[in-house]
């Protein structure tokens, strides 16, 4: 077995050629207030500060309704925060852009486009020639396990298949930052594991920055450099846990690794605490 040094130890290695990790995303004292239909202000995010380094894989973990999606939308530029600011590569985020690719919880596929049409949409918009965009898109569709479904319309796909198309569609235009909102939520265990591995392979190859929202402790630990634990009402960062496990990670090996098991158990305990706190506010 070949164990490569983990990223964190790579960064820690002293040497003149090593660049210090640069910040890709800086979230600075962000709060988000929503007006509910009852005309009451609802504090969805409270004073969130978080820095995500270039090339890091960061997961956001927290109970339902704690503001994970909202935080992702702010980084995406789809929602502007009530106070505070978010920056990408040092520039304040004011609008969406192709440097940040979202994969939404609701898929949001274009129903009038086929699977291929959906995946090709981004590259075509960016001016990639049709033949080239098509070849790349077909390869991506194959990667997410949908070969043979290129000419299907979204309504003809299952929930899990739609989710995979959404992932391929975003990967197709090569965003530097991936903003993934429970992208594997609707998948069966087997496909989920496969796509987690594929995502890790892509990430290890391209070193994209990934902000990954999930409900699953297991998934967060397996994939991430850092896990951000959030608590509910109002959404706050409870704790940031560095996951110091070697890469490339193999699921079967990790499951037997006591360090992995300890991370999972520790975080799950923390999750339980938050849940209890959420029940009696």
């Amino acid at each position, binding site marked *: 077995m070949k164990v490569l040094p983990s990223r964190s130890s790579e960064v820690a290695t002293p040497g003149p050629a090593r660049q210090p990790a640069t910040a890709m995303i800086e979230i600075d004292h962000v709060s988000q207030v929503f007006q509910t239909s009852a005309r009451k202000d609802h504090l969805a995010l409270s004073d969130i500060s978080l820095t995500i380094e270039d090339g890091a894989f960061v997961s956001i973990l927290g109970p339902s309704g704690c503001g994970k999606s909202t935080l992702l*939308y702010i980084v*995406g*530029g*789809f929602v502007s925060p009530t106070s505070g600011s978010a920056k990408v590569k040092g520039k304040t985020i004011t*609008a*969406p*852009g*192709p440097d*940040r*690719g*979202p994969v*939404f919880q*609701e898929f*949001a*596929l*274009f*129903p*009038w*486009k086929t699977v291929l049409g959906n995946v090709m*949409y*981004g590259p075509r*918009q*960016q001016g990639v020639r049709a033949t080239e965009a098509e070849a790349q898109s077909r390869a991506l569709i194959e990667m997410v396990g949908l070969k043979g479904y290129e000419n299907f*319309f*979204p*309504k003809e796909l299952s929930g899990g298949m739609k989710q995979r198309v959404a992932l391929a*569609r*975003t990967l197709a*235009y090569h*965003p530097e930052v991936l903003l993934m909102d429970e992208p594997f939520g609707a998948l069966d265990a087997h496909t989920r594991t496969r796509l987690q591995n594929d995502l890790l392979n892509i990430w290890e190859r391209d070193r994209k920055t990934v902000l990954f929202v999930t409900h699953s402790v297991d998934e967060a630990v397996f994939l991430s450099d850092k896990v951000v634990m959030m608590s509910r009402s109002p959404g706050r960062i409870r704790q940031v846990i560095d996951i110091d496990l070697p890469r490339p990670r193999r699921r079967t090996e990790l499951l037997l690794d006591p360090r992995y098991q300890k991370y999972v158990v520790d975080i799950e305990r923390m999750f339980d605490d938050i849940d209890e706190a959420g029940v009696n506010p």
Partner: protein
Amino acid sequence: MTSSAAIGRRVAPLLACIGLLAAWQVAALALKNDSFPTALEAMRAVPAILGDKEALINILASLRRMAIGFAAAVAVSIPLGLLMGRSRTVAAFFNPLLMVIYPVPKAALMPIIMLWLGVGDIAKTLVIFLGVSLPVIYHSFEGAKAVEEKMLWSGAAMGLSAAQCLVRIVLPAALPEILTGCRTGLVLALITMITSEMIARQSGAGNILFNALDMGQYDTVFAMIIIVGAMGIGLDAAFEKVRARLVRWSEPQFDMPLSFS
């Protein structure tokens, strides 16, 4: 596989037509009223009308006005409805205007429009335009409003501008709803076409119908009703074909061509 249910679906409309004509025939024979010809008499008058050059010119003139009025209305109403659906400001500006126009029977505006524009093509085409506009605006508006926000966000993340999003995402996403409006609009175009010609008698299918009524040629009156009805059914069926093809990606809907939907 052609199941008996499929055959039944084919035969049912035919049976309905025959049933209607038979009931008409029986009722007319029973009533023996001069102003109520039998179905056979009315149908015998149809080829006579369609064979008459003058009548044909009249009908074609009607259809031309209808086509122009419909096309112009669709061309204006779809962009307007979509803009209203995506912009509160645009909606707030046009909504009161439309609310005033909506309940007014468009044919009731005919006298005023005739006063301004005369009895010619322009006035009649304008009335058709007004009749078609409202359902198309309304359905485009509803369709645009219902477009999933995340779909627009996905587009924006790919680099589409707001205007591009409107044309390349809102328009196709709202298309099923828009086409439902257009279909209602098409039937309304036919109705306003006839009523406008009833008020401004000068030419057209409505003109033939109401002149025949004045002169007591009841078989011609009923023959014209059959012709106009057939035109409506034909146009609607043709439009439904086009619609089904354009939105075959959409959720499967009750796909029977119901004209009153």
